């Protein structure tokens, strides 16, 4: 981090953590995110029912408003959906699906994009330029359109959505990493590593890559939020995940049919849940960007 921190012997990551929590909004986002992540991770143990197990669902309890008691004396705090799913349980499992696919696709896209970006910077010349042309071309197409195109071609389902999300995201990482790596290539440590006759793989991954990490951290945070929103959008349009394992987007879409008849809770609560998750991640990302962006630091 800053030179002062290094002189005072404080570890850079401590500086980062302290700076992060100095901002109340960011701290709030972090706490919210941790809470959601715990709900998502431990949903099978925390949720009042398993919303995927049809034997567990009571159709006669369908479409109950918030705060009603079901036929077997179960209390539904947020009401139920048309299948008789307790919305609390459905939302917890929805977190699991949305967060899981968002994070997994972002990390996969990061692995691919980072490798491509580093390679393009290291190779340079016409080949490096050609790679970046492809990246630029892809970035000129809006992500939602790209994902739609993929889903239209390969069909829907969890693996296909994952594929579509990775395709929609990898270019951002490639562009970011290549931009930093081009600058870093000029640094003395790279010249020194080259002077030591280290192999290109070693220079790329153990010398260049660590120096690209701060911006990557910011991009990955923001991209996870974007991927979650994109998956929810696809699922909402009915092109995403199967109805048997509802993500938040699908819950919203289901509830949407009932909204005109005044049964607001079926789409309102999953909507709020989705919103809280995305806002929490974006608050974290925003703060990280402020902290890690060297240009903004005094």
């Amino acid at each position, binding site marked *: 981090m800053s030179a002062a921190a290094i002189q005072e012997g404080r570890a850079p990551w401590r500086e980062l953590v302290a700076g992060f929590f100095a901002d109340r909004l960011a701290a709030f986002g972090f706490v919210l995110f941790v809470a959601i992540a715990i709900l998502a991770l431990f949903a099978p143990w925390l949720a009042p029912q398993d919303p995927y197990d049809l034997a567990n669902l009571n159709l006669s309890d369908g479409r109950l408003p918030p705060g009603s008691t079901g036929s077997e004396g179960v209390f539904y705090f947020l009401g139920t959906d048309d299948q008789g799913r307790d919305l609390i349980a459905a939302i917890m499992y929805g977190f699991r699906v949305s967060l899981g696919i968002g994070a997994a696709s972002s990390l996969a896209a990061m692995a691919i994009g980072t490798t491509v970006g580093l390679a393009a910077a290291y190779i340079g010349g016409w080949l490096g330029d050609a790679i970046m042309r492809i990246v630029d071309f892809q970035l*000129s197409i809006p992500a939602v359109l790209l994902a739609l*195109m993929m*889903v*239209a*071609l390969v069909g829907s389902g969890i693996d296909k959505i994952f594929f579509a999300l990775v395709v929609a995201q990898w270019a951002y990482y490639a562009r970011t990493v290549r931009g930093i790596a081009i600058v870093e290539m000029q640094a003395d440590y790279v010249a020194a590593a080259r002077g030591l006759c280290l192999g290109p793989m070693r220079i790329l991954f153990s010398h260049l890559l660590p120096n690209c990490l701060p911006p990557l951290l910011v991009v990955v945070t923001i991209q996870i939020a974007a991927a979650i929103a994109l998956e929810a959008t696809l699922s909402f*349009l009915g092109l995403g995940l199967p109805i048997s394992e509802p993500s938040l987007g699908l819950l*919203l879409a289901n509830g949407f049919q009932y*909204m005109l008849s005044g049964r607001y809770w079926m789409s309102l609560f999953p909507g709020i849940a989705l919103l809280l998750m995305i*806002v929490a991640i974006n608050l974290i990302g925003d703060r990280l960007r402020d902290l890690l962006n060297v240009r903004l630091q005094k």
Partner: protein
Amino acid sequence: MTLLVFQRVLQGIGVVFAMSLAVFLGVFAIGDPLSLLVNPTLNQAEIAVVAERLGLDMPLWRQYLHFLANLMRGDLGNSFVSNTPAIGLILERMPATLELAVTAVLVGLVVGIPLGLWAGYRPEHWTSKTIMTGSILGFSLPTFWVGLMLIMIFAIELGWLDSGGRGETRDWLGMKLSVFTLDGWSHLLLPAANLALFKISLVIRLTRAGVREALAQDYVRFARAKGLTMRRILVVHVLPNILIPVVTVTGMELSSTIAYAVVTETIFSWPGMGKLVIDSIFALDRPVIVAYLMIMACLFVAINLLVDLGYLVLDPRLRHRRAA
């Protein structure tokens, strides 16, 4: 300047070619073109005839040339559903989408610029902080979520506006548009606001950053020394200087607005290209999907070209540098 325009046009053509290659590879190489392009209700003999007509027995590169040649003629096959040319179907729906997207971008500018000016002029004021927090929210909210909320509040609870279809339209230059009737506006307002929210946030951020940078410049200090009011300095001196990047980015954003219209049109049953392509994906109507993608590529290239040209017109420095 002519050289630059020429360069841009060439680049645009390159992008359309790249898109055609991507769509071609997607449909013909990755997927099974027979199942993608041939109506599944046909029998075996009919399928063989269609396969030959489509040239599927030829090597891949010749198939691509064939595809390109058809593309040049504007022939991308007939829709399976309506059995009319796919391109015609899309073009018929285009005015509705463009009307929606352009309205949304204009709303974004009209609302975003004043808010951004204020937030940049008084960054520490509580109203500015509220505006900026609001803009984070505007970035975070998924489009379809905002659409649902708008319908819930303004169409269902309050009953002020309509949430389905285009309402009454009038013909203008051969296009049906909603903007000329009151009923049309009552239908247009909610979807346009839905799409505009993200633009408003973006414009606020851009304008605010521009104002903060401009306020530190000498020409602002000089204008102040002359005793001009802050209002005049902001509107007459600062605004033209920051408008160029704002307009450029907003112009580029028109492309993504048209893409995101897919979502908004579906929610509000707005009969545009986006609604058509979603319906076509469900109906497995591939020729329409291919036509949509190609038309979108051309549209994006055209918009980017116009923005580049607009940039040249707006910024005299750029014009002279290129001319010299």
